[in-house]
């Protein structure tokens, strides 16, 4: 398996740090494979003929179930079916080593699928890494994929922090409950993050107009500047590169949580 090398990660000691990192990998990074194969043809080609159900389980921790079928990937946070491959991560530290340093996981099931793991899945995760690692000499289409994957992964990571990180919990405890719509105007992309069923979570699609705040980035250039921490967001608002409306404290506070992701992955 590719290292998924922390586009993101600043390895630091500490169980909590590793527990949160492991969760981000399992609940935010791996689920981004769903979007990757939808958006990126080379990624889709890698799994076009595959029919696998991969179950990642962190002992006493998070689970990720990926179903690869008909050139698509679907994700579930629980075991949704009988897996063809079961990868066990012994501890958060082990999970971080697997995802960042390429250490071998424990394969509990799927010994006959090692070839798929080593070739196709490894290449698939490397393709994800290509986008999550940050801006490169992307084509115009790749720029779009980069922006979408980064934003969705960030919003999914925010869900992890909302559940597991003390400071994020405190920030969100003082936040009005509602749903934030995040979008990129030029490519007509939207995703959501909000308080639903008693917790703050990432929402892929929202039926109706039930959001309480809006944060729209004008174009891909603005999005890249924001993602690479090169954008003065207040200046961006005044210049019309960013548009906000609705309950602004939700935007402020979710922004604070999003800003904390780099404490774990960079």
């Amino acid at each position, binding site marked *: 398996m590719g290292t998924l090398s922390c586009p993101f990660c600043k390895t630091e000691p500490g169980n909590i740090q590793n527990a949160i990192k492991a969760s981000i990998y399992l609940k935010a990074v791996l689920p981004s494979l769903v979007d990757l194969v939808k958006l990126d043809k080379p990624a889709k080609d890698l799994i076009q003929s595959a029919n696998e159900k991969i179950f990642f389980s962190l002992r006493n921790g998070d689970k990720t179930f990926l179903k690869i079928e008909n050139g698509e990937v679907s994700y579930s946070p629980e075991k949704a079916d009988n897996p063809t491959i079961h990868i066990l991560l012994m501890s958060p530290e082990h999970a971080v080593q697997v995802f960042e340093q390429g250490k071998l996981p424990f394969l509990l099931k799927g010994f006959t699928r090692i070839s798929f793991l080593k070739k196709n899945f490894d290449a698939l995760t490397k393709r994800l890494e290509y986008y999550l690692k940050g801006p490169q000499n992307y084509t115009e289409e790749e720029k779009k994929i980069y922006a979408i994957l980064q934003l969705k992964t960030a919003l999914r990571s925010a869900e992890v922090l909302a559940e597991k990180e003390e400071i994020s919990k405190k920030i969100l405890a003082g936040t009005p409950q509602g749903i934030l719509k995040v979008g990129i105007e030029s490519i007509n992309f939207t995703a959501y993050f909000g308080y639903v069923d008693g917790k703050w979570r990432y929402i892929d699609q929202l039926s109706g107009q039930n959001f309480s705040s809006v944060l729209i980035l004008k174009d891909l250039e603005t999005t890249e500047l924001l993602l690479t921490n090169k954008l003065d967001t207040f200046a961006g*608002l005044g*210049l019309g590169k960013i548009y906000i409306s609705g309950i602004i*404290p939700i935007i402020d506070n979710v922004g604070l949580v999003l800003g904390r992701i780099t404490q774990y992955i960079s």
Partner: protein
Amino acid sequence: MEVFNYSENQKWFERATRVIPCGVYGHFSPAPCVPTNAYPFFSTRADGCKFWDVDGNEFIDYMCAYGPMIMGYHNPVVDEAFITQLKQADANSIASTKMVELAEFLVDLIPIADWAFFAKNGADVTNYAVMIARAETGRKKIIAIKGGYHGTAPWMQGIGHPGVTEEDVANVIRIPWNDLKALEHALEENYGQVAGFISSPYHHPVFVDNEYPAEGYWDGVQKLLKKHGVVLICDDVRAGFRLHLGGSNEYFKFKPDLICFCKAIANGYPISALVGREELKVTASKVFHTGSYWYSAAFMAAAMANLQELKRLNAPEYLEKLGNKFNEGLIKLAKDYGFNLKVTGHPAMAYYRITEDPSLQLHQKWCAECTKRGAFFTSHHNWFLSMAHTDADIQKTWEICEEAFKVLKSSI
């Protein structure tokens, strides 16, 4: 009715972003002005209750510099006092007698005050008040209200904000407004550790309806604080001198140990004040707190002239009456167009919200449409009235508001 163009504002803002973080920072930042393209960013001049932006657009100002302007821009009495003192002495190597005169004036004006101390901004004196409470009690913890604002020093900000550490806020306990049980619980849970309770006289946070103290709230607070030996700090920076010249606590009938003033104290000239009870004077003397410009005499002269004018004109009564008239008109206009405009807080500095849309987007749109036509309204913050707002200004504002309601109605 003309809808304003902001092309010069945009040019200046672009220039600003090259050399200033945020372009315009802090509470003047465009961030809460929704949408930002409905708002001006830079002014060229101001007079009375109006200001003009760099595009030449004229606004009737309902933010009053976010509170400081109470007599009107360029009030001749206040400005004359400032200029006269400026010509005599302002910054100097020793203190001015104006400082003594202003302290005497405040001690006479404010019933709980036995002494006064001067600084520049509201946060200078909220910080000082907290230090005095800690010095007096030998305790660390401060209880504050959720959503209450006391400046931008790290202890006053929320956890997770850039530049704020967990240690900075470790000794601040936040409780809901109007919740005596929460206060009692916080005091019991932190028995013998709470130095002070800091609160505005009524709850005027941003983005949400403002709230008056419930019947018996301040009595209950005072009893609990007395029982636990906790210093009561009234942060009257925003409301001070608008509700009552003796401090807003007089309006709500409670007696704090310390009161923080700023904003309306000098009609825009930079000065703040902490006043306190005799019992805390020696402790105050032991807490070292100072600043480069805290002795500038011209600002003290301006404060004195401003407060004398407010007293002469009985400003709180005028502002309350004007505010009630203004609000009645606004509420009726809204109703005529099928909207419910909720007005909360004191009429001199009320908070407004169109209730049909809990996400505030409708209200934001209405405020933006008003601003683009010359009534400077923000949608997130309470507004302010001044002694310079006249019936004619109110009438003109109603006309603008009506036009904006028409636009709002046609858009939904």
